[in-house]
Each structure stands twice: as structure tokens, then as C-alpha cells.
């Protein structure tokens, strides 16, 4: 396994070298607006510590759960020939249960990103 360690070390050296080199080569200047966030030339208003929609939270949860599912599938896939049809039916049930939850979330509209349809319709009426 030593080639992998050498490789990773070499990659890190290359990356660190880029950071360090550009740090020393770059110019420095200091003016009135240097230390301000760039927001297309408009002076920044308020903090960037905003709170966000729960849509993103759901995407992250979906990801974690399906990633776990994927890992179970990985271990089936690698021993697939040895397990034969019995293993196939076991993983079929496994996938079916998770697909059921996906269908459920789909039906109640959890997979729609962005504002709910109801709110969009209200906006159109206005």
C-alpha cells in the first residue's frame, strides 16, 4: 500500500505548493473597499448568516438514507453470483421497501424543490 501513501503525500505537496506560492507571489494592496464582500458592486447589507428553506434539509436527509441503502446494495452486488436467486429476492424486497418510501414522498409532494405549488398559485393570482 505504500504507493498510495506516497501518491497522497505527493498530491498534498503539490496542492500546498500552489497555495504557498500564490501567497508569496501575489501583490498586496489596501484601499477603502478592499475588505468588503463582493455583491455585484452593491454595498453589502446585513450578515451572510442567513437561514434557509427546509427543502435543502430534506435533500440532505434523502441523500444520507439512500446512501446507506446504496451501501447495502454494494455488498449484495459484489457477492451476487454466490448468492444466486435467493439473494436476488432478498435485495428485491429491500429495494422495494425503500422505493415504497420514495413513492410516498413523491405523492405527498416532498420531492418538489422550491416554494410549494400553492404559494406559486397565490403569487400568480396577485
Amino acid at each position: 500500500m505504500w504507493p498510495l501513501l506516497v501518491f497522497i503525500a505527493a498530491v498534498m505537496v503539490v496542492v500546498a505548493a500552489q497555495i504557498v506560492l500564490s501567497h508569496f507571489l501575489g501583490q498586496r494592496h489596501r484601499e477603502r473597499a478592499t475588505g468588503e464582500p463582493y455583491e455585484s458592486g452593491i454595498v453589502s447589507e446585513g450578515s451572510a448568516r442567513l437561514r434557509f428553506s427546509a427543502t435543502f434539509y430534506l435533500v440532505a436527509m434523502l441523500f444520507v438514507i439512500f446512501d446507506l441503502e446504496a451501501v447495502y446494495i454494494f455488498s449484495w452486488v459484489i457477492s451476487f453470483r454466490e448468492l444466486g436467486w435467493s439473494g436476488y429476492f432478498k435485495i428485491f424486497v429491500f429495494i422495494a421497501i425503500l422505493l415504497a418510501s420514495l413513492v410516498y414522498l413523491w405523492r405527498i409532494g416532498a420531492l418538489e424543490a422550491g416554494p410549494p405549488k400553492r404559494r406559486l398559485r397565490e403569487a400568480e393570482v396577485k
Partner: protein
Amino acid sequence: MTIAFYVASAVALFATLMVVTRRNPVHAVLYLMVSLLAVAVVFFTLGAHFAAALEVIIYAGAIIVLFVFMIMLLNIGPPPSTRQESLLLTPGIWVGPSALSVLLAGLFLYVILAGGRSVQAGSYVDAKTVGISMFEIYFLGVELASMILLAGLVGAYHLGKRDLPDEAEGGNG
């Protein structure tokens, strides 16, 4: 390989120590990621390549990402006051748990020493072996896991949904 094992273990311990001492939640979570990566290296040196890869994919690549993501979404940032946390560092609170932990560590050491197992006891474990034992011996556990995942998915949605009407149209980008 033995050296790699000890170095990785040391990194894991150090990183975990940093996790509990950081004030900034993002930094703490990053140290937690390093700690999990080090554990993956430990698995690798013990011959469990499959487990090492899964450790990185699931823990470092999914669960910690979820943590970082949630911190970003809620934008907790450094806490305005650490009074509550400082309270946890008063001796009265940590003496009991640490006494119990020392007891457990002693027991653990005893088991290791009495069992006479060395660090290199692990032999190379093929991914195939893992798969076969999962789907032949423990397949009920696998099916139950899918039920738990289903419950987690549905529960996550309904728990998260409660907040939906509160937040305004902001942040759909």
C-alpha cells in the same frame, strides 16, 4: 502497516479531542471528519478494505456532510455565549462519567491483554465474504434495516415539514 495503524489511531484520538474542544461548530465537525477518516485508515491497515471504503462513503461522505449542511442551513456559527458548555467543564459534572469511563477502559485493556490478541490479529477480509454473510446469515437484519431507513425517511420529512410554513419565500435558490 503496524506503524500506519498507530499513526492513524493517534490521529483519530487527537482529532476527536479537538472535536470536543472547538468552539466553532464547523471546525468541530471538520475534526470529526478527520477522525472518521483516520478510523477508515485503521480499518484498512487491519485488512478490512471494504469496511474502510464504506466508512469513508457513509460517515465522512454522508453523515458528516449532513452535519455541515445543517450547520450551514441554520447558520449556528460560534455561540454567542458558552456559559452552558463551560458549565459542563466543572468537575462535579465530569468526575462521575470519567470514573466510569476509566473503569470501562481498564476492563477493555484487561480483555485485550488476557485474550492475548495483538493488533495484527485481523486478516484480509474480502468484500465478497462480507456480502455473503450479510445476505445469508444476517439477511433478516438487512430487511429490518430497510424498514428503519423507511421510517427514518418518512419521519425526517414530517419532522422537517413542521417548519415549512414559517420560513418565507427566501432561500429557494
